[in-house]
């Protein structure tokens, strides 16, 4: 299942963002940040303790089931007075949840996370980006592996000169997308797909911010 993959901001940055706010309410998320162990119940508890130690008054904490869901507002209404007393809401979900809560409550929200990418857990504790929603899919010609996402430079015509022993020039722990594609196409007997010239990518798939009206 796809998830929003996050990493907690350095505590110094969180402290800077909370400057001037004495009373804080902390909200975790029971979905993605629970899976990535960045904003589930244990992390909310640790954050609450850390901020108390730094002199903040924690007016309350909760972990909502799905922070980005429209029902979040109703769930948070149970904490009305604790939220009202707070100078700011520290939200330990991804940025989808932070924005949802900010819009629903009209409150001051502070993100505790960097939202890195939409990805999945490809092995225990390892999260990978598989698709970056570019709006012009070419994986029908690349053996089902996406070079726009898996290649650091989003190259669509083959590897760059930085590839080395099947790894990427930016990190020897990252696979070279084009080595993966090459191996897959070779196994499928479709190496000719790799010889096809791919035109410059169409960035007009859906101009950012994405908005798509699906007729009922």
């Amino acid at each position, binding site marked *: 299942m796809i998830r929003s993959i996050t990493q907690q901001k350095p505590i110094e940055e969180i402290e800077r963002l909370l400057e001037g706010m004495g009373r804080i309410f902390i909200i975790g998320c029971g979905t993605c940040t629970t899976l990535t162990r960045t904003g589930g119940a244990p992390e909310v508890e640790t954050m609450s303790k850390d901020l108390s130690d730094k002199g903040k008054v924690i007016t309350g904490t909760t972990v909502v089931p799905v922070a980005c869901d429209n029902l979040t507002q109703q769930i948070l209404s149970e904490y009305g007075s604790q939220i009202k007393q707070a100078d700011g809401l520290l939200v330990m979900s991804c940025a989808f949840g932070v924005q949802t809560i900010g819009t629903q409550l009209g409150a001051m929200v502070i993100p505790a996370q960097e939202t890195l990418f939409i990805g999945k857990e490809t092995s225990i504790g390892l999260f990978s980006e598989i698709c970056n929603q570019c709006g012009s899919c070419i994986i029908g010609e690349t053996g089902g592996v996406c070079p726009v996402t898996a290649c*650091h430079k*989003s190259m669509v015509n083959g*590897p760059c000169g930085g*590839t080395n022993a099947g790894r990427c020039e*930016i990190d020897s722990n990252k696979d070279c997308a084009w080595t993966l594609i090459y191996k897959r196409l070779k196994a499928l007997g479709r190496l000719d797909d790799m010889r096809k*010239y791919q035109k410059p990518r169409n960035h007009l798939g859906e101009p950012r911010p994405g908005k798509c009206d699906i007729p009922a």
Partner: protein
Amino acid sequence: MTSAFKTALHSGKFVVTSEVAPLKGTNLDKFIHHVELLKDKVDAMNVTDHQSSVMRYPSLGGALLVKEHGGEPILQMTCRDRNRLALQADLLFAHSRGIHNVLCLTGDSVLLGDHKEGKGVFDLESSQLLKTIRIMERGKDLAGNDLDGAIEMCAGAIVTPEADPIEPQLIKFEKKIEAGAEFIQTQAVYDLENFKQFMSYARQFDVKILAGIILLTSAGMARFMNKNVAGVMVPQSLIDEMAGAPKGGALKKGIEIAGRMIRQVREEQICDGVHIMAIGKEEVVPDIMAAAGL
């Protein structure tokens, strides 16, 4: 207008290109000194484009300086820092100022350089940039609009003959030639027996190939490249030869090795010429050429 470099490529002579690297800042004395030193010795000089993703004086400005000082520039263009609008605009500008040679590169990752938080553009990549040049030579831009005045370029690309795995690299090499590459400057080669094998494959294509020669300055540098530079493989025998140089004599030994390799490439007609990269030691390029008997 056929560039002097293109004429040299098709003259049947052994072609020699070298590299001049713009530096960080507006003091151009050293760059101009290198241009003056090399302009009558080599057939053309590549002007690097924020080499290794380190921000410097631009390659287009450097290529103009080469021209103004009587040299023949090869403008290196990477796709890392400019989108398709900016790349096409720079090609128009280059043509209008008499720059008619270009080496098309995708470019290193921004992460390898000194502005790691910057955005890598990569709107196009090397093969697409080559194709763009051929479209612009026919008087159109990438969106299909008419140009009032087309460009004309002798366009080239690179290949890494020792890449691992090699087959994807060769497929890309063929795509670059199909996209319009007229010449290829290779990543550094040190094992000429391996390179001969690559050439026996590459000879079937209508493209001029210049073997990349990087000057070794120490045994440590050779080991560093083997460990850190993709597709560069310095054989142990050359590392030993560098290590065995007398104290203070490593550079001299490196010049001797580079000269010896170039001589062999030329005498055995392994390929069409060489591209000498004396990273940071451009002033010894004439010594390398002398050692090669050029």
